[in-house]
């Protein structure tokens, strides 16, 4: 801790994002860098707590509290305060393979559990992380590193999302020969096609990292759909170990009247197609397009926000985001104390953009959809929503109860379903014969990652269910460690 009184002297300050009306004209990142001096002051706000929580990474009341990959946050905050950027980057890389991803897309459970957050705005941990890593890339401190010795063991990683990438990088560091299989045309999984470009730049950030990994000796095979053009049994035969990092890609559907109308899509259909179009020449070629349409996004989470941001950039006529839960409070409530994840009202980039253009936050709360109305040609025309109230049933569970008379018809030519994911796709799991748990995830213990088949490991959302990028990195690293232990008898991986 460079400055014991930093938290008293400096206020929390974040860089201003690009203005909403300007940034919706392109697909570039909306995040802007902060000047050195200000960053150092923000680093000085860290209190080097006697009992810190920011790096703990525990589930408290079912939500992440503290960094799931145990980033050494107080240490690099101090190094930033002292202007030792290279040392800060080294400290950051100790625990985090991809700080340039988490520094952009992580919801920052570290800040939720920051001790300063008890009675003051938390330290800007996420922004400092992004600043350290971006600085490192600019200065050329991040480079490809081939392992000095190869073990001769071959490992297959299925899926190139954050879990697969971190797993592959760790295994490669340990000297194993790693091949990553990806069914999409570009590697990165949700980092590539799930998160839109304005939040995480594909060419400048994601592919930059993939290139570095390739230069370190990791092989990526794209357009490789296991069970389709790749024989599933080759993993058991040709590789010494296999790690499943296939994600939880099964979206939750809304099987109500009119679901099959043209214009009702899963969020991922839009986001994937859009990023592909942006990378291949222009968003105007995106097959699902929101231009001049009344768009309704169902689901108030991050994916929903990404749909809002994408629709805004397409030039939608209007936008509504429907959330079944009540509007969160502005401050923590008594049943949501520090260091729990703060369930408070936040305005994310998508809502900010919608508000700037249309004058109001597009979210409506305590609302659900009853039916989709279409025209004779089968095109979506409008949806019927109804307000709900959460009531306890006889078992004491909260269930949504529709409020009669609150039905409302809303015009809509495009509906995006962003209601979360149910679990991994089952076909491959069945084909290989992996056991699953009650939630249809691959059965394997956290911190152990071994599945029902010897030599096969599972990590990330396919084991845990849908979750944060940072949990995926935690699992990818952990699975690499266990895989290395399995292959070599012992392991030095963290």
């Amino acid at each position: 801790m460079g400055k014991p009184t930093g938290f008293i002297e400096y206020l929390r300050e974040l860089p201003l994002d690009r203005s909403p009306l300007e940034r919706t004209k392109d697909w570039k990142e909306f995040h802007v860098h902060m000047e050195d001096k200000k960053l150092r002051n923000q680093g000085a706000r860290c209190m080097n707590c006697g009992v810190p929580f920011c790096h703990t990474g525990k589930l408290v009341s079912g939500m992440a509290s503290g960094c799931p990959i145990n980033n050494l946050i107080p240490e690099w905050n101090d190094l930033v305060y002292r202007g030792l950027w290279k040392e800060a980057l080294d400290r950051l890389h100790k625990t985090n393979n991809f700080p340039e991803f988490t520094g952009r897309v992580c919801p920052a459970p570290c800040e939720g559990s920051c001790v300063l957050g008890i009675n003051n705005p938390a330290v800007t941990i996420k922004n400092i992380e992004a600043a350290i890593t971006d600085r490192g890339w600019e200065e050329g401190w991040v480079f490809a590193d081939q392992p000095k010795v190869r073990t001769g063991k071959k490992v297959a990683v299925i899926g190139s999302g954050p879990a697969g990438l971190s797993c592959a990088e760790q295994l490669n560091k340990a000297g194993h020969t790693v091949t990553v299989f990806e069914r999409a045309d570009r590697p990165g999984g949700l980092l590539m096609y799930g998160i839109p470009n304005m939040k995480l730049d594909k060419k400048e950030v994601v592919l930059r990292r993939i290139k570095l990994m390739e230069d370190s000796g990791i092989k990526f095979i794209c357009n490789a759909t296991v069970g389709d053009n790749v024989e599933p049994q080759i993993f058991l035969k040709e590789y010494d170990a296999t790690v499943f990092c296939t994600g939880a890609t099964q979206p939750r559907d809304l099987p109500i009247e009119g679901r099959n109308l043209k214009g009702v899509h899963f969020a991922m259909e839009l986001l994937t197609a859009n990023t592909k179009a942006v990378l291949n020449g222009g968003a105007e070629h995106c097959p699902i397009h929101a231009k001049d349409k009344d768009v309704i996004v169902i689901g108030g989470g991050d994916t929903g926000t990404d749909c809002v941001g994408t629709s805004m950039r397409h030039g939608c006529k209007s936008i509504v985001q429907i959330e079944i839960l009540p509007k969160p409070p502005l401050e923590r409530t008594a049943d949501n104390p520090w260091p729990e994840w703060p369930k408070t009202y936040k305005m994310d980039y998508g809502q900010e953009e919608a508000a700037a253009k249309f004058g109001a936050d597009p979210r409506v709360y305590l609302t659900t959809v009853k039916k989709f109305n279409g025209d004779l040609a089968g095109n979506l025309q409008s949806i019927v929503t109804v307000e709900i109230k959460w009531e306890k049933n006889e078992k004491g569970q909260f269930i949504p109860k529709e409020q009669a008379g609150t039905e409302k018809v809303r015009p809509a030519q495009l509906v995006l379903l962003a209601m979360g994911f149910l679990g991994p796709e089952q076909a491959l799991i069945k084909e290989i014969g992996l056991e699953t748990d009650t939630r249809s995830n691959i059965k394997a213990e956290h911190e152990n990652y071994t599945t029902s088949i010897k030599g096969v490991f599972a990590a990330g959302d396919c084991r845990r269910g849908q979750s944060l990028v940072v949990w995926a990195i935690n699992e990818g690293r952990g699975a690499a460690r266990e895989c290395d232990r399995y292959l070599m008898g012992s392991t030095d991986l963290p």
Partner: protein
Amino acid sequence: MSVKLVSEVGVGTIAAGVAKAHADVVLISGYDGGTGSSPQTSITHAGLPWELGLAETHQTLVLNNLRSRIAVETDGQLKTGRDVIMAALLGAEEFGFATAPLVASGCIMMRVCHLNTCPVGVASQDPRLRARFAGKPEHIVNFMTFVATEVRELMAQLGFRTVEEMVGRTDRLEAQRAVTHWKAKGLDFSKILYSPDVGPEVGRFCSIKQDHGLDKSLDLTTLLGLAQPAIDRGEKVIAELPIKNVNRVVGTITSYEITKKLGAKGLPEDTIRFRFKGSAGQSFGAFVTRGMTLSIEGDANDYFGKGLSGGKLIVHPPANAGFKAEDNIIIGNVALYGATAGEIYVNGRAGERFAVRNSGVTAVVEGVGDHGCEYMTGGRVVVLGPTGRNFAAGMSGGIAYVLDQTGKFAEQANVSMVGLEKVESKAEIAELRAIIEHHVGYTGSARGKQVLAAFETFVPQFVKVFPKDYKRMLGCIEKAESQGLTGEEAIMAAFEENARDLSRVGGN
């Protein structure tokens, strides 16, 4: 009277001594407590778990039939009702909690108690941080109620009705067999769980009050009676009495009665005057309040004027003494420890650690041993003779004037927190002279007379020991007062200014 002992091997023997010395409570303190400002080494490498020290203490006290007259307390990260039950079964009937209630009231264990930057305002003087303190007494009440509830539940399970019944009942404890760690294999709990084989006549918990022998004290046998007219009606009282070194803590109970009746303001100066002849025992004049003047023709033992609270103490040798007063030690070590107000005049030298932690007494003495004025924070000390080494170590307030005739004082002083200056201002010279005049007036000091006789020539030989922080603080107060602030406001403004001063040497 409570004596705190570190839980260590052999603590039982010490506790037995403590019990024989009439302490009411012995506290066995475990190793893993400590404030947030303690050094890491103290937190992690000092002492043993309270369980070990407590078991040893209880067994030793029972074996020597001392347990029935002393209460045994234990502390060191007690947090739950189960901890209390364990402590009782191992031999304690009193239990100390600190960390847990502190946390209940908002402490987040930042371990910066010494930096004035406590972010929840528990351990800070900074008004901005203190405003953040969100604790309420109810939080601690709530916590302790939970602890007590758990204690009651566990007592019910064990079949005990009172805490006394539980004390030392190690037969109700058994080692946890479920601990399978390999390190647990070699553990032998039989020594901890041993219960001394003594008859029913030997008490196993505190049941007899300690006899402190207060009724035999000089105060209760003589002084209080003599002083009664002064306490009741404010009449002047003068008495001459013999004193011996078995008379300890003389004047304290009388002073207590005065304070009880009249509060801290005490009586008008010199209302009660006791003149003793002989050798005074330890702690002569301890905590004596305003209005009491105690003088000795003879000498005094250690702890002279300990915690002096406004009274006046005078010591001088008999007129027919065959030695030079200024060359001989007349009062023992650790005089004026923690004294807050009053005056003392010593016609002779004092032992070591004179005026340590003095915060307001004006004292004249004719020489001191090592460590004089250590950690002093206020008051005036005039030394008309030589000092030992390490003078003024950690001294952060008050002023000492040392008559340095050999020019060697600078070698003896510890100047890490003080500056050595000359006495120059007229007002200060006059003040110093007045103090010495009082000294001569009360004791007839030959040394004092000699200094006064040629005062102008002696003034340049006085070294003014002036703490650096204190000096700056006085400057800040003066500045604040010149800006129109008064009293407490001026002091707070100076405090705030000083707290952020990087040249500050103390309090960090």
